[in-house]
């Protein structure tokens, strides 16, 4: 059975191919409940993520109350981007939509963190941090800006996303 939309689940909308591959690695964690998460095709850019969210997902999220969404975007050193994206999320959905991503772009994470040679490796390490409640990777300079959003997401999804 695909994701059961009547049970709690999360859809991941990655900005691009690099973020998609990070999400793939995340899904390979043995503790993950694969039936509660679905990665969607990458729209190709953070503005397109917003468009896809607006056009395809807002009405569906109103319909399916157990649906959560993670928008996986690059922040490109733009400190206002998180706020700009959040402004496009309807107030009644804000609690169920999360926005995470690299401070610059995922390629820099790969270059700057030893032993994480592929995007999947990054995803696997991020999942391990979530399972173990550590910040080995999430605490890195290029990802630590996600702390508040991550904390909010983990408290919402961990009970159903990890076995």
């Amino acid at each position, binding site marked *: *059975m*695909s*994701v*059961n939309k009547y049970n709690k689940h999360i859809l991941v909308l990655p900005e691009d*191919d690099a973020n*998609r*591959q990070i999400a*793939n*690695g995340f*899904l*390979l*964690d*043995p503790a*993950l409940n*694969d*039936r509660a998460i*679905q*990665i969607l*095709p*990458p729209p*190709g850019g953070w503005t397109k993520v917003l468009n896809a969210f607006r056009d395809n997902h807002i009405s569906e999220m109103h319909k399916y109350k157990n649906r959560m969404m993670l928008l996986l975007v690059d922040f490109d050193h733009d400190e206002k981007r998180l706020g700009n994206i959040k402004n496009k999320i309807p107030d009644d959905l804000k609690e169920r939509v999360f926005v995470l991503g690299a401070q610059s772009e995922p390629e820099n994470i790969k270059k700057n963190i030893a032993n994480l*040679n*592929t*995007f*999947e490796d990054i995803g696997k390490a991020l999942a391990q941090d979530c399972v173990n409640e550590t910040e080995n990777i999430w605490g890195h300079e290029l990802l630590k800006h996600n702390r508040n959003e991550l904390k909010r997401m983990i408290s919402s999804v961990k009970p159903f996303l990890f076995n």
Partner: protein
Amino acid sequence: MLQRLYIHNFRCLENFELQFKDMPSALLIGKNGAGKSTIGIALEVLQRIGRGINRVAHLVQTEDFARGRTDVPIRFEIEVLIDKKLYQYTLALELQNNFEALRILEEQLIVSGEPIYSRQGASVTLHEAKFMVDWHLVALPIIQRRSEADPLHLFKMWLAHIIILTPIPSLMTGESNGETLEPKRDCANFGDWFSGLLVRYPAAYMQVDKYLREVMPDIRDFQNELIGKNFKTMRVQFQENQADMRIDFRNLSDGEKCFFLCAVVLAANKSYGPLFCFWDEPDSFLSLSEVGHFVTSLRRSFETGGQILATSHNSEAIRKFSNENTLVLYRKNHLEPTLVRLLSDMSFQGDLVDTLIRGDIEL
């Protein structure tokens, strides 16, 4: 774990090498005719040797020579890591002028750099002993093992347990009149495999059951009932709101049969693995909403042991792999051999699936 596969002069594969070091799962993509399924056919030659088929004529035919080039030997080389030891097996086959049948030119098994046996033509050297084997018989299946721990035996078992799948659901009836751990490529003996797995590894039932409950929440039970002397048939029971429905396995949908197949692959890998599995288009027969979960389940399971190599044309399946575990196969035309390159070693702009749809990937 398969480290390297080298094939020469076999169908479209010429001087063709695949490296799988540290890859628990990998995907082969490429246009129709690029050679994806041919890799499965080459692996099947090695699997059949492991399963005891030793007559060359039952393994390879003269039409398998690339572009009919019979003056060049067909060569298979496989390198496998078993219990941290590297096994290197080579088999070269030739067709002599004015002969109709292929014969052995060269055969060798090396473990951790030490030769176990080597062969030139009919002459085999095993440790200190020398003896002759018919030119038309592969030596590996007929050399007597000395113990369960004999490297020769371990390697043969590894080959025999290779799972190669191109399932044809209509042939998967769920009926069995025997037990095996050696599924056929088309899965026509699925019932025998299911029976063999459960008889030899009863704990596998739990794993099969766990997976099936995830994909079919209304499944209540499945039985492998004895309905005649040595004849069993699989039946599946569903339950919803206290209503029951029991159906024969043969009447499940094609996709549902593939759920069972996936469950058995996962349980087999846990029970008598680590195994190597080649699955040609595992997305076939599945709904779009199911493909990603199906592929990810396979990938996740093989992360902890064993190896899976899949092929696909399905965008959802392709997106469940990443650049460092996706191999692109390309063949310019039918007169040229298959080329292969890791996607992470290629440069292309934008979305991979879009690029594949446009047919813009070339090597």
